[in-house]
C-alpha cells in the first residue's frame, strides 16, 4: 500500500479521496489554489500546498507545480479525482516518469478512450454496438441511400460540426435533399468544411452507464448500472440513480456483459465507466470515462463497495477483493447535485459567500461536500457545492427520503438547485421512471410556458 497520496483535485471529490486514504491508513497531501485556501479539503488533509492562483490554468491544471508538490512531500501516488487532469494522459505519463503512481488506468488506455473515434472503433472491433453511422457522404443521394440502410429518422451531421450547427434531423427521404443542402452550407459558412455524414437519430434515449473495476491481473467486474437521464439542456447530469428503474432485465444483463467485455478488450485497470444510449431494447456505446465519476456514490450505496478505496488498492497492485458473484445490489440510491446555479435562469452559475449552510441527516442520507456556513464559492470552478445521496429499500422510498432530505437542506447566499430538485422528486413522470434525456429540457420548457402546453 502507498504511504502518502497526493490529491490532485479540489472540492468534494478531494475530500472524498482524503477520506478513503485515511481509512486505508494512507497519509494525504492536498493541493489548493489561492481561491480555495478555506476549503474543507485543505483542512482535512495531512499536508496542503498552494499550487497557483485561482484560475485553473495556474493551479489545478499546473502539471509542473502539482508533480513538484508530490516530489517535495514524498508522495508515492497521485489521485486525480474527476475533471481537471483526470483524463490527461500526459499528466499520467509525467507522474509515472517521476516515480509517482497514477491512480487510474495506463496512459495508453486514457489516450485510446479519450479520442471518441478511436474509442468507437475499438469498441466496434470488440463487438460492442455503437450508434450506426456512415463515413463522409458526398451527395444528398448518397446520404439518402445510407439512411435507407439504417432507417429513418436520421441525423445529418457536419463532420466539423458543433453546438448544433450543420446538424439536421431528417424524418423521411423527401426531406433529405433540402436538409443536406442547408446543413452543408451552414457548416461551410461556420467551419469552412461542409462535409456531411449520417447517424441514426435516437429520439428519446436513456443515458445508462455501467461501472467497472479492473485489477492489474486481468480480473474485471461490473458494479451494475446508473441511470443519468435527468440532464440539464446543457447535457450536464443533475439527478442520478442506481439501479436503472423500469429496465428490461435482458437489456440490463446485456449492458453489464458488454461493459465487462469492452473493459477486458482494452486491458482496463482501475475504475471506469462505459456510457450507453438505451432506446427500448437497443443499446449503443457512447464513450468510456477512464476515471471515478461524480455520481459514483449511488453505486457505492447499492453495492456496499467503496470505489475510491478500490481505486487506490488496485493502483497499489492489490487484487480485487471480490468476484462478480460476491457483488449483489441492494435497494435503490438516488443522488441530487446541489449546484450554485439558478434553475429559473437557465442554470446560470453563481459565485459568492454562503451565509448559511445546513445539510440533511438521518437514516439513509449521505452528503458529500466541501462547503460550510461562511465558505466562499469562487468564480473559477464548477458550480457543484454538494451531492446529496439517499438510499431506500425501493425507489419509491428513496424518492420520499430525498424529498425529506432536500426539505432539510438550507443554503443561503447563492441560488441553488435544491428546490428545483425537490420539485422533480414530486413529479409524476419522474416517479414513473424510465425517462429519456430529452425529458428535463422539455419539462423546463413546459414549466416556463404552461399555457402553451
Amino acid at each position, binding site marked *: 500500500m502507498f504511504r502518502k497520496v497526493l490529491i490532485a483535485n479540489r472540492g468534494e471529490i478531494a475530500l472524498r479521496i482524503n477520506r478513503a486514504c485515511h481509512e486505508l491508513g494512507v497519509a494525504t497531501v492536498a493541493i489548493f489554489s*489561492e481561491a480555495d485556501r478555506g476549503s474543507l479539503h485543505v483542512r482535512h488533509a495531512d499536508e496542503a500546498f498552494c499550487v497557483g492562483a485561482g484560475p485553473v490554468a495556474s*493551479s489545478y491544471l499546473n502539471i509542473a*507545480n502539482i508533480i513538484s508538490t508530490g516530489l*517535495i512531500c514524498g508522495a508515492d501516488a497521485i489521485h486525480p479525482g474527476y475533471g481537471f487532469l483526470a483524463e490527461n494522459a500526459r499528466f499520467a505519463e509525467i507522474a509515472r516518469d517521476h516515480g509517482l503512481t497514477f491512480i487510474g488506468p495506463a496512459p495508453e488506455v486514457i489516450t485510446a478512450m479519450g479520442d471518441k473515434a478511436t474509442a468507437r472503433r475499438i469498441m466496434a472491433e470488440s463487438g460492442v454496438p455503437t450508434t450506426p453511422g456512415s463515413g463522409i457522404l458526398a451527395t444528398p443521394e448518397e446520404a439518402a441511400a445510407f439512411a435507407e440502410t439504417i432507417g429513418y429518422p436520421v441525423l445529418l451531421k457536419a463532420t466539423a460540426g458543433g453546438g448544433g450547427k450543420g446538424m439536421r434531423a431528417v424524418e423521411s427521404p423527401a426531406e433529405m435533399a433540402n436538409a443536406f443542402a442547408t446543413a452543408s452550407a451552414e457548416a461551410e459558412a461556420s467551419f469552412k468544411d461542409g462535409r456531411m455524414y449520417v447517424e441514426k437519430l435516437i429520439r428519446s434515449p436513456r443515458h445508462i452507464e455501467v461501472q467497472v473495476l479492473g485489477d492489474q491481473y486481468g480480473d474485471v467486474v461490473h458494479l451494475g448500472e446508473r441511470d443519468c437521464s435527468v440532464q440539464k439542456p446543457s447535457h450536464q447530469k443533475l439527478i442520478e440513480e442506481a439501479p436503472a428503474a423500469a429496465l428490461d432485465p435482458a437489456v440490463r444483463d446485456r449492458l453489464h456483459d458488454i461493459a465487462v467485455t469492452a473493459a477486458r478488450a482494452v486491458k482496463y485497470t482501475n475504475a471506469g465507466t462505459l456510457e450507453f444510449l438505451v432506446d427500448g431494447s437497443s443499446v449503443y456505446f457512447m464513450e468510456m470515462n477512464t476515471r471515478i465519476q461524480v455520481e459514483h456514490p449511488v453505486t457505492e450505496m447499492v453495492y456496499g463497495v467503496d470505489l475510491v478505496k478500490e481505486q487506490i488498492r488496485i493502483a497499489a497492485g492489490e487484487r480485487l477483493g471480490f468476484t462478480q458473484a460476491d457483488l449483489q445490489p441492494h435497494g435503490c440510491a438516488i443522488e441530487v447535485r446541489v449546484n450554485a446555479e439558478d434553475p429559473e435562469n437557465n442554470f446560470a452559475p453563481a459565485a459568492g459567500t454562503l451565509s448559511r449552510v445546513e445539510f440533511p441527516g438521518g437514516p439513509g442520507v449521505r452528503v458529500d461536500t466541501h462547503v460550510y456556513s461562511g465558505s466562499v464559492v469562487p468564480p473559477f470552478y464548477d458550480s457543484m457545492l454538494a451531492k446529496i445521496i439517499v438510499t431506500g429499500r425501493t425507489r419509491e422510498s428513496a424518492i420520499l427520503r430525498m424529498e425529506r432530505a432536500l426539505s432539510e437542506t438550507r443554503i443561503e447566499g447563492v441560488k441553488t438547485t435544491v428546490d428545483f430538485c425537490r420539485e422533480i422528486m414530486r413529479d409524476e413522470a419522474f416517479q414513473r421512471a424510465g425517462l429519456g434525456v430529452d425529458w428535463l429540457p422539455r419539462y423546463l420548457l413546459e414549466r416556463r410556458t404552461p399555457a402553451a402546453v
Partner: protein
Amino acid sequence: MFEDTIAERVRPLAQAFTDGGLTRLTVREGEFEVEFRRAPATAAAAAVAPANDVAPARPMDAILADVVGVVRFLRPPITEGMALDADRELAFVETLGIRNAVRSRGPGRVAMIYVTDGQPVEYGQPLFAIER
C-alpha cells in the same frame, strides 16, 4: 474544539505583535509553535500611516515564489542587509529539475530572508523582502 483553542491562544499574541510594531515574532511551547511575520505589503502600508510611535519603515517588496519547488541559494548566498545596486538574481526555485530564477526586480536592500537553502516552498510563499 481544537481549532478554537488554537485561536484563543493565538489572538493575544497577534495583538502583541501588532501593538509592538514587530516584524517577526516566534513563540514555541512544546508542540505548539506560532510565528508572525509582517507581510511586506503591510509594512509598506505602515510606512504611509505609522501606528503608535514606531519609526516609519521604508517601503518593502515581497518576492514570492511563483512555482512550487525547492529553494537553492546562490554561492555565495544572498545575506540580510546586502545592498543590491540593480535587478539581480537572489536564488533559484528548482521545479522538476528546472531552475527558476528568483530576481530582486530592481535595486534595494535585502531586508529579510524568509527561507533557508533547500527549503521546499509553495506557490505565493514569501522568499525575500527587499527594502527599496
